């Protein structure tokens, strides 16, 4: 009896601990992602879908004949993973496989990767056709936020 009670209490304690960890994780670990463009960019009203098409190599030019230049974060960073998963609702592995297949036919190339958010901010602020994404809290006045990804 004594032993059984101890086990039960211990199990309940572990369960409560796990719940707490999960709550902390969902609430704090995923900051919003801001999709950014040059402040004088011509495509200020891009939808989320258009952004996906640009990043996945489908939308190569826009109706105003501007060719968008999507910029990607470093491969393997949690930000990048979060960006694609939220935007396309696909795991990153599938996105990689998608690019691998398209690259094999040699007609399309994936967005250029930059080492960190700073480089992205810098690149976007210097190119009128560039599109990038950074953490919400790293956005500067040198770029314009198109929208936030939850």
């Amino acid at each position, binding site marked *: 009896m004594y032993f059984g009670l101890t086990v039960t209490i211990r199990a309940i304690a572990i369960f409560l601990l796990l719940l707490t960890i999960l709550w902390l994780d969902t609430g704090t670990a995923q900051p919003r992602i801001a999709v950014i463009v040059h402040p004088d960019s011509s495509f200020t009203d891009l939808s989320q*879908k258009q952004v*996906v098409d640009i990043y*996945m*190599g*489908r939308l190569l030019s826009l109706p105003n004949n501007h060719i968008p230049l999507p910029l990607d974060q470093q491969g393997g960073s949690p930000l990048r993973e979060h960006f694609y998963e939220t935007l*396309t*609702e*696909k795991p990153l592995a599938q996105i990689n496989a*998608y690019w691998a*297949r*398209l690259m094999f*036919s*040699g*007609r*399309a190339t994936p967005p250029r990767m930059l080492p960190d958010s700073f480089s992205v901010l810098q690149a976007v602020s210097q190119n009128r056709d560039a599109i990038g994404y950074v953490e919400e809290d790293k956005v500067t006045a040198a770029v314009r936020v198109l929208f936030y990804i939850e």
Partner: protein
Amino acid sequence: MQNKAVHSLKTRSSMLVFFGMLLLSALIVLGVYKLTFDDAEHDARQQVAELVDAMEYSAAIALYAGDSQIADDVVRGVVRGSFVASVRLANDSGLDVKRNKYPDYPTPPLITRSLQSPFDSLETIGILEVALYPPEIRRRAATSAKKMAVALGSIVLFPTLLFWLIISRMISKPLLKLSNQLSTIVPGSEQRLSLPVSRHRDELSTLKGDINALLAASAASMRKERNLRLHIEALERQYEAIFTQASTGIALLDREGRCLIANPAVSDLFDDWHDQVQSVFSLLANWETSLFSEPEQFRCLLTQALNSNNVPQSLDLRLQRRTEDPQDWVHLLVSCHPDPEHTVVAECLFIDVSDRKKQEDEARFQSHHDALTQLLNRRGLEARLNLTYAARDNDNVILLLLDLDRFKQINDQWGHLAGDKVLIEIAKRMKTLVRGIDLLARLGGDEFLICIHRQSSEQAVHQFLIRLIDSLSQTVDLGDTRSDYVGASVGVAQYPRDGNDLVELLHKADAALYEVKHNGRNGYCIYCDGKLAPVILERT
């Protein structure tokens, strides 16, 4: 042999089973064939759909990215499917990749799949169009149906063979064996079918048992019948023996007197008339004319028998013979049946009575004749002399009453044997002097009577008397070199002049005779109205 095999039970039943199974399996094959065909397009569509499923993601990528290279890969992959005639992958942005394996086939059924964006399932980005190739579908269906038909056929064949074997082993062979056994069994013999040793009785052994029972029953029946037949045959032989060996003639006649059957005794009666006998057992028509000397008597008898209801009629009938002597007689007994429908109406019995008739004739002869001289005696004379006939014919009859002279002396001198010799000699001499129609009688002792018919004149009577007395008075040889003589005295009376009956006439003649004896013997006297004038003759 070929025919026998075709018609054997096992072959026929096996054929029935085979054809029944064949029909069934043909129906099944047809059904399966149809189902296979009906399902074939569905199956093909499913197969193609699966193929498309497998390629869908790649196709979506190709359309999404507008990559014609990948699109071409996809189209090439899909078109490789067996049932696929052509494949087309197209989007609105001008990508349109198409491959056609059978460009000649018109209006194929299509499978069209609209493809969604890989990153947005709500957005349709193009279509994948697959055309099916029905000939290939049909070919596949036919192949599988054929395989099924072959399988079913072998399934049919095996039970048929099995059935044939079972029928052959369980029914046909035992039946043939039974048939062979039956064919060797002689009806009525003690042979029986062999029954199986085991107590387990099936239909066949029951049948065998029944057949054995039938054989036993028929054998018993045949034995019984054979015994009965033997008995009847024995009886028939006895009857036949009676019929054929009887000394009494038996004949069956119809209403007209025609002979239906006669036994040998009847045939024997014909004696000299064997040509009249058709065979031993039957006679020719009008046989009675040949057999009887007076056939009308027989016909009369038959008529009487037919008319007298079932009362036998009998008569003695004289048989017709070429010679008069001896006379053959039969006693005929005819009895008729009352049944008019019956062909045999009369039974005739022929009893030979010739000997009896002969004896009767002899007895009659003896009673009417004198044993010594064979002349008529007094009774014979009375029977033969029929004055009534003579009177009717207006005939004269002359009676000569004759008495021998010296007969007593001869008897006394030479003995009675010599006297008998004299009497015999006298009778012989008288016979030579009279005609056949005249009567000669010895009335007793040495007294004789001669009756002469139609002696015309008185003169002739006198001459006859003289000749008679002269002849009788001649010497008589007595044997042993002895001889003697007698004289004759004759009294004559004449009918109807001297009397109307024999007694009266004899009385008159006796009176005349007395006159002769009284006047010296060896003479004659004719009685004429009481006037007696004896004539005495000298012995020459």
